[in-house]
């Protein structure tokens, strides 16, 4: 769906994006992460032909993107932070205007569905410039979806939205994805990406450090696994047997709960549970403590950047 090959953008002495190789597959939700100034918005602008790359190539829908191309945007919906609106258009008229630009013949039904779904139906005839920031953001999402795009590019889609609005937008994106759409989402709200993205790319100082699934990302970063085991009772001698096991690195006990740090062997957890059963223990709950995306993001973009780039 989106492929970039050695995509580079240089502004005089500042290298905004460096040799970016992105691969967004059809039908997936791709989370594009990076700290402020990492080059995410510049990358999106290059994908939309709003700014020209210094070097490299972009393939969209399997075809190379040439300077001046604009027809491909018929199949793309874009949500970005909404600017101040000075026109005389109401929210309804604005979406209708964009539907006209996309060549949608009869957008009314689709518009009604989207306006109702995002709670803008009652204010649809109000001037768009009088909308609150959250309402403008919702309007942007309606505008991006009105023509049923093949690819949805979202740049901070939930900024300015209240929790209810975030939920509505999340469900809308989920439905769009379920119906075969591809989503390229750039966000600072890592929990949003963690919840929805199939794969994640992390950009730092213009370079793509990692491109992987969240599970794969954790695998790259987690050397050891932490396990929390709750037992019916702790049998005598169990702790000693666990401590002697080669795959158990650390152990502590809090009442009926045992906290174990296991080495990164794929069968470590199953061997652990077998050992507990052999010692006469009954496991009530076994939970592995996984690294959150936020932890992964901070780890990747912190001091070990160069080292991890080598891993990627």
């Amino acid at each position, binding site marked *: 769906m989106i492929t970039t090959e050695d995509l580079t953008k240089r502004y005089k002495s500042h290298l905004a994006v460096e040799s970016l190789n992105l691969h967004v597959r059809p039908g997936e939700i791709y989370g594009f992460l990076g700290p402020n100034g990492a080059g995410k918005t510049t990358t999106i*602008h290059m994908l*939309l032909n*709003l*700014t020209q790359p210094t070097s490299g190539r972009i393939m969209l*829908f399997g075809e190379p993107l040439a300077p*001046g191309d*604009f*027809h*491909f*945007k*018929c*199949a*793309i*919906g*874009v949500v*970005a932070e*909404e*600017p*101040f*609106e*000075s*026109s*005389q*258009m109401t929210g309804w008229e604005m979406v209708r*205007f*964009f539907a*006209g*630009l*996309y*060549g949608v013949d009869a957008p009314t039904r*689709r518009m009604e*569905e989207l306006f109702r*779904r995002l709670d803008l139906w009652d204010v649809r005839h109000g001037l768009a410039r009088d909308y609150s920031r959250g309402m403008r953001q919702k309007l*942007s999402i309606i505008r*991006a979806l009105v023509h*049923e795009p*093949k690819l949805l590019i979202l740049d901070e889609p939930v900024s300015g939205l209240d929790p209810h609005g975030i939920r509505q937008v999340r*469900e809308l994106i989920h*439905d769009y994805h379920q*119906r*075969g*759409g591809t989503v390229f989402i750039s966000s600072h709200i890592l929990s949003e990406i963690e919840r929805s993205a199939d794969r994640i790319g992390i950009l730092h100082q213009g370079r793509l450090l990692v491109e992987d699934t969240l599970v794969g990302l954790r695998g790259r970063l987690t050397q050891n696994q932490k396990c929390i085991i709750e037992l019916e009772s702790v049998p005598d001698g169990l702790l000693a047997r666990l401590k002697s096991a080669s795959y158990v690195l650390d152990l502590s006990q809090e009442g009926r709960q045992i906290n174990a740090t296991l080495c990164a062997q794929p069968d470590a957890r199953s061997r652990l549970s077998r050992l507990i059963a052999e010692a006469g223990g009954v496991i009530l709950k076994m939970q592995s403590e996984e690294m959150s995306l936020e932890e992964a993001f901070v780890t990747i973009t912190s001091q070990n950047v160069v080292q991890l780039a080598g891993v990627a």
Partner: protein
Amino acid sequence: MSNVQPMTLPDRAWLRAPAWALRGRVMRQVAAQELRDALLSWPWYVAAAVGLLLAVLLIYNSLNFIATSKLLIMSRPFYLPLLTIATLAMLYVIAWSILAIARPRDQGALRVLFFAPVDPAGLLGGHLLAGIAIYGLMLVLTTPLLVVLALLTNLPFPPLLLVGAAITPVFALVAVALGLFISSIASTSRSAMFVFIAVVLLVVGVQGGYRALLSVPPTSTYYDALLFLRTLLRAINAGLDWVSPIALLSGGLDAALRASWSDLLLRAGAALVGGGVWLWLAIWGLGRRGVLP
């Protein structure tokens, strides 16, 4: 969402829709929207009202002059009033077109517009159509009132003046295209207005300077020293007659009143060529400058 229709994803053929078809669609949409926005804002009505007020004052002045001088025949009493209205309408569309690209770019709205299948040619073409329509509507609104005044005052309103008025949107094309060019290349809307004011001052300066030099008597000690400057300003002035939209408008109305069709066609041709060149430069300029703030 149970009532959601299945997605109709675009196929490859649809993605390869011809550029001219997409541009035509964009031009229609943008022109209609810009025209509507202009008609829903007060500056358009202020410009029309001021133009009409000045025209009425000029006619009142003509009537006073007829009364005091016992003049029996007065040719062209409506030439200057119509020229005033058309000039004000043209200044309005120049100012409108100068902000047409630069202001939404400053605000970030132009970037959002280019998320849709829009390119510089389609967008500027739409603005050009809107600008001509905005100008034309102002004339359509005000010219009949001049005809009514002609009937009330018994001053002659030659039909040829209506022919001239009908041709003037061609001259407005130059004004709008020039404004769009300045708007496309300017870094901000403020700098676009500065460039416009600088251009106006330059044109007025050239014309005023030339007239001032014409008044220098041959006996003056500076006459010979200023001869080269006078010749240069005359040449620039002659060039401006074929480039400046207001000079083209004035000359075009005059040619229509004289029924000098070849002159009128020549001026209309110059306006079409000039408008085309400015529009091409505006498209090039927007491509170079980009749509990002």
